């Protein structure tokens, strides 16, 4: 057989039928659902008198609309004060009940952001196809699972047929070689990649992240990177299987049973690109040259090194780009030439499917420990990615570190990443955020978002403006730790 990339292998292993016109039917192993993109799909099934093809392939949890304050959360769905949000969550509950789909409801300890929940449950496994009505489904590619976001029509299609109509993508390898500097994390790698190739750089491609710097990352760091593949235009981000992958999964609730485990591991070991596999495009980065990153504009590609200055739109040699930069600077209330470290902030958000896992919280806590949130910061909030992440963080005392420093410690959910619940920026407010999108209005009408790593966000909270965490006195970990699967079992 000809040499194959990891993506080629995953595609071939799930091909049901190939049509002459280039489209194909591919089989879906895991379908994750949340309340925002599923109601119309369930309604479609109901109207057509259809049933889910395979109930056990589906797993649901509400995440986008759930409140994150303890007071509201303790009342369950009734605590969702916005009627429209509450109806959406209740609709998910009712649909899961009537179609007999497993759901972790609002106050189940296993509830959380769907892209945090899947991996921590072992519901995401190597060699799977994973889809969800959410573009950040790319996250699950960290496990060498072919994973991508789909729209609501496709949610309905997957429910009804266990398949998706798809076209094969091209292969792009992003190779990051070398050692990261201290204080530089997975988030900085992926922001640097997006800065290099642009938000459309990966359109039409499945990206495989490779190289020694990726191999050195923990699974959580790899999830952070794959999560933002979509911000580079690629629906799919992948990392090959290695010991980190296998160690992470062992013992998780949905992982293979003890008697299946040896065969599973043997099959997973093959989920790597062949040595001489062909990539349509290769991009290389030197890990040692990557600095902590801060976005300054309204697209994730508008990103700069923390030591740099806000760029000058007139330096761009493309009129559309210059216009976009001017519009972004106006929206963001920034001027060309301003030092990134002079940007003063109003709020800080640590959370989202990009950076709300235990290692992210540990990094932020190391920076926050023994320090205080600056007086100009009106709100600094930490939102764990799931109930299990929250419990583990509390067992480690991270919640006390945050609270003593002046952060709010919240209940799990998507929260201010996209502000569908009550957590949002006011017009003109400026936020250091560990999330994934800095689009206009993303975190609230008129809100201004700067994307950064958890350590950078914590340091910004303490200083009231951006600082270079590499100059900070703490013990950085670079997403190179490993979460113990045993800690994540409910």
């Amino acid at each position, binding site marked *: 057989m000809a040499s194959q990339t990891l993506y080629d292998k995953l595609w071939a292993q799930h091909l049901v039928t190939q049509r002459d016109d280039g489209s194909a039917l591919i089989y879906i192993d895991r379908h994750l659902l949340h309340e925002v993109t599923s109601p119309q799909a369930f*309604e479609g099934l109901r109207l057509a008198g259809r049933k889910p093809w395979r109930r056990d392939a589906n797993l649901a949890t509400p995440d986008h609309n759930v409140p994150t304050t303890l007071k509201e959360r303790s009342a369950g769905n009734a605590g969702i004060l916005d009627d429209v949000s509450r109806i959406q969550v209740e609709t998910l509950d009712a649909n899961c009940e009537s179609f007999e789909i497993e759901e972790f409801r609002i106050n189940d300890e296993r509830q959380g952001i769907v892209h945090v929940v899947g991996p921590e449950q072992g519901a995401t*496994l190597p060699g799977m196809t994973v889809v969800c*009505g959410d573009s950040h489904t790319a996250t699950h590619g960290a496990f060498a699972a072919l994973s991508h976001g789909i729209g609501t*029509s*496709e949610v309905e*299609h997957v429910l009804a047929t266990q398949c998706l*109509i798809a076209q094969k993508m091209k292969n792009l390898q992003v190779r990051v070689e070398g050692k990261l500097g201290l204080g530089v994390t997975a988030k900085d790698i992926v922001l640097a990649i997006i800065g290099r190739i642009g938000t459309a750089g990966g*359109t039409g491609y499945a990206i495989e992240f490779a190289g020694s710097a990726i191999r050195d990352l923990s699974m959580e760091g790899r999830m952070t990177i794959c999560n933002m593949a*979509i911000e580079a235009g690629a629906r799919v981000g992948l990392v090959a299987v290695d010991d980190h992958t296998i160690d992470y999964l062992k013992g998780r609730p949905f992982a293979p049973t003890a008697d299946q485990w040896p065969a599973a591991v043997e099959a997973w070991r093959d989920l790597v690109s062949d040595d001489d596999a062909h990539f349509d495009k290769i991009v290389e980065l030197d890990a040692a040259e990557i600095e902590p990153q801060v976005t300054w504009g309204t697209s994730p590609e508008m990103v700069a090194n923390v030591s740099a200055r806000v760029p000058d739109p007139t330096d761009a040699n493309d009129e559309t780009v210059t216009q976009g930069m001017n519009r972004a600077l106006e929206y963001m209330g920034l001027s060309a030439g301003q030092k990134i470290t002079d940007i003063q902030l109003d709020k800080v958000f640590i959370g989202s499917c990009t950076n709300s896992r235990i290692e992210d919280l540990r990094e932020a806590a190391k920076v926050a420990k023994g320090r205080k949130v600056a007086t100009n910061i009106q709100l600094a909030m930490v939102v764990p990615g799931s109930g299990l992440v929250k419990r583990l963080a509390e067992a480690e005392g991270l919640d006390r570190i945050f609270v003593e420093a002046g952060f709010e410690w919240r209940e799990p959910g998507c929260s201010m990443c996209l502000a*569908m619940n009550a957590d949002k920026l006011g017009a003109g407010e400026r936020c250091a955020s560990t999330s994934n999108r800095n689009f206009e209005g993303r975190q609230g009408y008129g809100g201004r978002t700067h994307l950064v790593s958890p350590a950078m966000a914590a340091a910004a909270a303490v200083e009231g403006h951006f600082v270079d965490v590499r100059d900070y006195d703490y013990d950085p970990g670079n997403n190179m730790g490993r979460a113990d699967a045993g800690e994540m079992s409910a």
Partner: protein
Amino acid sequence: MKKFERLQGLVAPMDRANVDTDLIIPKQFLKSIKRTGFGPNLFDELRYLDEGYPGQDATSRPLNPDFVLNQPRYRGAQVLLARRNFGCGSSREHAPWALDDFGFCVVIAPSFADIFYNNSFKNGILLITLDEATVERLFQATEATEGYRLDIDLEGQRVITPSGEAFPFEVDAFRKHCLLEGLDDIGLTLEQSGAIRDFESRHRPSNPWLFRDA
């Protein structure tokens, strides 16, 4: 899905790159559990001077006079002319639902984001990719000529200008067929139920851990 018919559509220009789905339909409107009614909130943050929320009467809101779709000359537009990487960001199908509900059935741009591309075709919206130079010419023509219309011929895969100049475009055969016939994907796929079951009967023995119902 409705069939895609050939049209002479009024063109409206959206002159900015990287129009994301948050801009097309802001998140507060994603709380709806319906597929319809998103048209009044298409490009909400650009279109109105106030902050929108679900369930409000859009007709009483202050319009942004500078926003292109608020200009009378573009009323009734069916073809949206856009710049590169249109539809980037989230997977929300509410974006094509909003475009459709507003009345757009065609978007022309130099490039589109992948998920948005898929979602649009599932809703009968034709996305046409033309090179940057051609798109630039169409922008100039649209802005210069009030009432500028383009003839959108999906069958012949051509965009034809009022002067008769034709620009060919690519579209994959399956999507074209579905659009022209107004076909329901799910029904088509279920015709292959046998092939799906055959696949499962091979897939399950080699990956038993992927099936939890045994």
